[in-house]
């Protein structure tokens, strides 16, 4: 049979003499011709299982890696079933090549092991992962607490220039998206609640609803969630890349603690910027609510008076207090995940994902804790 691709041609003839199998090869054995020869020979061999194979290689003009691999495969198969194998008249340079690739001692690799899945094993591994994650988190919280305490007692030790730069990137540049989201949330909420309230003729209380929920809950929460996605992930990716590039190791060997040098600055920036952005979010959200009442024919002054009668400084400062804690939560989780980054191309991406997921979950959990505390305190 004749196989060809472009200019390459190879010939295969198989004949059997009793238990002896003679494979005659000719032409160019390369990646484009070997595949077909390989399949054809394999089929015959599997069917007939010969005791002895003789390869007549006198006609081979050229063989590249795949051609040589074919010869090696024949040899290994015969070795496995303890049959005889011989190659006749292989050209000198090809013989050298064969020995180069696979000296006579070469053994075929065992077939790939399929990964098995055992439930107890996986369960154990999962438990261990969760446990070591907790441990790492506790260690990090401890390191963070001591370094934060030190930073609060010695404010001059914080690298304020760096804090300013990070604050610009993580805070100032996030203003448009925070404002947009709180505007839409305020507007949508006012619109949705105005329609049922109108049936009872109490649409003016939309102002109370918007003001209370924006200041106490949605302003800080939406801002923190947005920043957890935007800033928390960037902290994790940044520190993760530094870890992969051995920059963290360089800091450690210089005797500079990465938590003090990298994490404190980021947390300081986040703790300062989150409440500021929350103020913007509160303001814009409440303003957006007014648009709905204005469109229903109420004058702006009515809305403003209603808002002022509904909320007090306590509501506003509750929201600010929460936003400070939210800032601490998402920035420290972002930094922790960044510092935990392992090696490999997907490591940084994994860290960023874990930072966002962890940040969002913890923000909501902390929000719930605050709700309980404020309820008990009666404010």
């Amino acid at each position: 049979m004749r196989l060809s691709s472009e200019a390459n041609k190879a010939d295969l003839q198989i004949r059997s003499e009793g238990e002896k199998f003679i494979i005659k090869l000719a032409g160019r054995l390369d990646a484009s011709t070997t595949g077909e020869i390989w399949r054809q020979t394999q089929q015959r061999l599997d069917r007939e299982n010969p005791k002895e194979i003789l390869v007549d290689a006198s006609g081979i003009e050229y063989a590249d890696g795949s051609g040589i691999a074919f010869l090696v495969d024949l040899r290994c198969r015969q070795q496995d079933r303890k049959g005889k194998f011989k190659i006749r008249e292989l050209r000198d340079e090809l013989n050298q090549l064969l020995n180069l690739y696979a000296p006579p001692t070469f053994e075929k690799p065992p077939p790939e092991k399929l990964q098995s899945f055992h439930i107890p094993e996986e369960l154990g591994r999962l438990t261990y992962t969760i446990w070591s994650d907790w441990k790492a988190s506790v260690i990090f919280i401890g390191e963070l607490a001591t370094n934060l305490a030190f930073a609060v007692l010695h404010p001059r030790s914080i690298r304020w220039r760096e804090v300013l730069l990070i604050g610009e990137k993580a805070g100032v540049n996030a203003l448009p998206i925070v404002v947009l989201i709180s505007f839409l949330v305020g507007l949508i909420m006012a619109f949705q609640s105005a329609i049922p309230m109108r049936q009872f003729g109490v649409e003016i209380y939309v102002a109370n609803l918007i003001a209370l929920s924006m200041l106490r809950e949605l302003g800080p929460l939406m801002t923190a969630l947005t920043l957890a996605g935007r800033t928390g992930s960037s902290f994790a990716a940044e520190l993760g890349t530094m870890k992969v590039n051995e920059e963290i190791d360089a800091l450690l060997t210089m005797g500079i603690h990465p938590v003090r040098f990298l994490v404190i600055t980021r947390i300081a920036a986040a703790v300062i910027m989150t409440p500021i952005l929350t103020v913007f979010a509160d303001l814009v959200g409440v303003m957006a609510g007014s648009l709905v009442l204005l469109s229903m024919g109420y004058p702006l002054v009515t809305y403003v008076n209603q808002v002022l009668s509904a909320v007090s400084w306590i509501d506003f400062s509750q929201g600010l207090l929460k936003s400070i804690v939210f800032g601490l939560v998402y920035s420290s989780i972002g930094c922790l995940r960044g510092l935990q980054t392992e090696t490999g191309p997907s490591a940084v991406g994994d860290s960023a994902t874990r930072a966002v997921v962890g940040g969002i979950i913890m923000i909501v959990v902390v929000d719930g804790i605050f709700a309980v505390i404020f309820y008990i305190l009666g404010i």
Partner: protein
Amino acid sequence: MTSSGKNIIQVENLTVGYDETVIVEDVSFNVKEGEIFVILGGSGSGKSTLLKAMIGLLRPLAGRTLIDGEDLCAADEKGQLRILKKIGVMYQSGALFGSMTLSENLRLPLEEFTDLPREARNLISCLKLNLVGLKGYENYMPSEISGGMKKRAAIARAMVLDPRILFLDEPAAGLDPITQAEVDQLVLSLARNLGITFIIVTHELPSIYAVADRLIMLDKSSRKIIAEGDPHYLRDHSDNPRVRRFFRREADPGSV
């Protein structure tokens, strides 16, 4: 030497650089088929940049590179693929895909470009790994092996499709002398037995003496080729003092 005298690579008046910075200016040279050709130069002289331009990763500012008579930058998509199949490249860092085992790294081009049966692909990847001394590491991830092993695995991947031309960027850097010598042996035997043309960027002198048929030396300040020829000859007879100093490992006068 199996060199048939045919120029398999022609670099014509090539100027390479990034934006405004010209790194290599107006260089021309030819590489013959089956030759082991070394691009040499101090740090920052543009060796790797020149290599990138030759394999089409960097568009030259002027001039062109012909690989087997064809210009990679001017070819259409089909032509580019045809040219790319003739070359294999080993990058300085290895550039193995971190999410795949060594064997999968090698099998990827086989799966994409050949119709070989599955077990043939497995065996070929195993043979190539054996060739670079990595038998038994088929199922390791790149992050689980040492830097030198990564380098050898990268050479194996570069030659898995049996290209006619292999570009190696710093194959010896970061390897111990014994492994370096093994890589040199590998290069020599591949060139002699398979007739593969090698273009090697390096500044490891022992390697150069061991393998190089011919070399060019780039210079940072003049951005040109300051020497071309056989390494042994250049060491003793070059009329450029910088070239002689390079081969004798002497510091530039007044540099320290």
